[in-house]
């Protein structure tokens, strides 16, 4: 059964500064528990804001290091989930359910990618 990475991308400018609401955290927690109990979830986590992140860049044979926040990026990775599903349709269904736990003012994009095996 293939594994899928669901990359959760958010716009830090529109995301609430105080972070997700307690209700959202509750709904998300319940859903994650459900996905885990279904035997599908292998690993998931949210990431701290890009303000605490660092980009290490390689270009033209040179390394450059930039500390966050990355204000020029419209979307940054805010979290991820690794799920083992029968097919991509199932991974997309779980991802839809994850997105639906958010309030309407959120803009979130999940990129579902199959993990290359072997």
């Amino acid at each position, binding site marked *: *059964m293939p594994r899928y990475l669901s990359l959760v991308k958010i716009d830090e400018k529109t995301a609430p500064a105080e972070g997700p609401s307690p209700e959202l955290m509750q709904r998300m927690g*319940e859903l994650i*528990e*459900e996905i*885990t*109990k*279904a*035997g*599908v979830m*292998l*690993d998931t986590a949210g990431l701290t804001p890009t303000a605490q992140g660092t980009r290490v860049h390689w270009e033209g044979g040179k390394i450059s290091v930039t500390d966050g926040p990355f204000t020029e990026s419209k979307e940054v990775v805010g979290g991820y989930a*690794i799920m*083992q599903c*029968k*097919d991509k*349709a*199932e991974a*997309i*269904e*779980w991802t839809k359910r994850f997105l*639906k736990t958010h309030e309407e003012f959120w803009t979130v994009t999940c990129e579902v990618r199959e993990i290359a*095996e*072997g």
Partner: protein
Amino acid sequence: MEPQPTPAPGTSATTAIETVFRLEFPRLIAAVTRIVRDVGIAEELAQDALVAALERWPREGVPDNPGAWLTAVARRRAVDLVRRRENYARKLQEIGRSLETTAPAQEPADPGDIDDDLLRLVFTACHPVLSAEARTALTLRLLGGLTTAEIARAFLTPERTIAQRIVRAKRTLATRNVAFEVPYGPDREARLGSVLDVIYLIFNEGYAATAGDDWLRPGLCEDALRLARLLSGLMPKEPEVHGLTSLLEFQASRTAARTGPNGEPVLLEDQNRRRWNRMLIARGITALARADAASPKLSASLEQGGPPSGAPGPYVLQAAIAACHALAYTYEETDWRRIATLYGLLAVQSPSPVVELNRAVAVSMVDGPASALGIVDTLAAEPVLRDYHLLPSVRGDLLRRLGRTEEARTEFERAASLARNVRERGLLLARAEECRFPGGPPDSPHS
């Protein structure tokens, strides 16, 4: 018995609906079975709910809680069905009463209730009144959501045979009046054993296919792993459930390394351990820790060097053995002494010649092939091992390490003649052939 609705193929809406249905199927069956007390009828009603969804969702959109929607439709139909059938008058009364006392099913049911129903479904599908084959087929059908065709393909059995097996199993459950329940008390342990054994059986059929051309049928392993994880969520306080889950996570972590480029099996000692899936190993370790936390006896029994009262169960012990392999970066670094001790505990916990044979392998790594050969030779007379190809295979390996290559060759040839799997037979014949021209010192690791 199994109406297969045929929606317009290829449309994304129907794909989404079918996916939702597949995900909700076990819970749906579980919830409806609680009403109609018959998994066969419950399955038909679940299919009816799917047809209703295929009619309405494309027009009206997928509801916010599709599982609750499907359950509500199936439950309503369950009630209609019971009303229509005179001979269900008694059940009608029961349902009439329970409908008056329970809220309409539009609201999502309490997740705790659903989980209980799922657990009841697990125990029903694995009921000892059914044969082992029927239990595995029914579990894959009802809990794994596999179609009859998928199960047939996985077990290399004609679809009609599987379909009949499932129909008969459902009928047996109905006619024998098997209660839709999770047993309590001493029954529970015995029945839980059957549940775990079914899941392990499914896994093993995928892990080392007993017959056929392919060594691995990974789909079955994944389904079993999913069932084990599901059960871990449903029964978090049962150490053996975590033990089985842990064992399967560890074994699944080796999948990529267990076959070579041409699909041939690669033995544990020859596997490229960098191909082991570290995430699954981490999950195995976590599950083993949960087993230990649910019953902190494993560490205690290892420290005491013997099984105390209430020692860990066989799946926890096997998981602990698998952990030793998973944590060793090379075959040589494996903690064989710990493995030998664990097999010793397992031999007390659930004595079997196969466990003794495995213990012999561990002993050979700690004390050398000669001591192990002593153990193996006492097993030679065991009737259960008479046709078990791994006995001559292990014996052959020990003899080869003792430099008795001619005897080793005979054993490998005998093992090959007993192996039913084509890939495995090939490997054993190759080992026999190597004994004909022994290169290098007799105790060098096989490569």
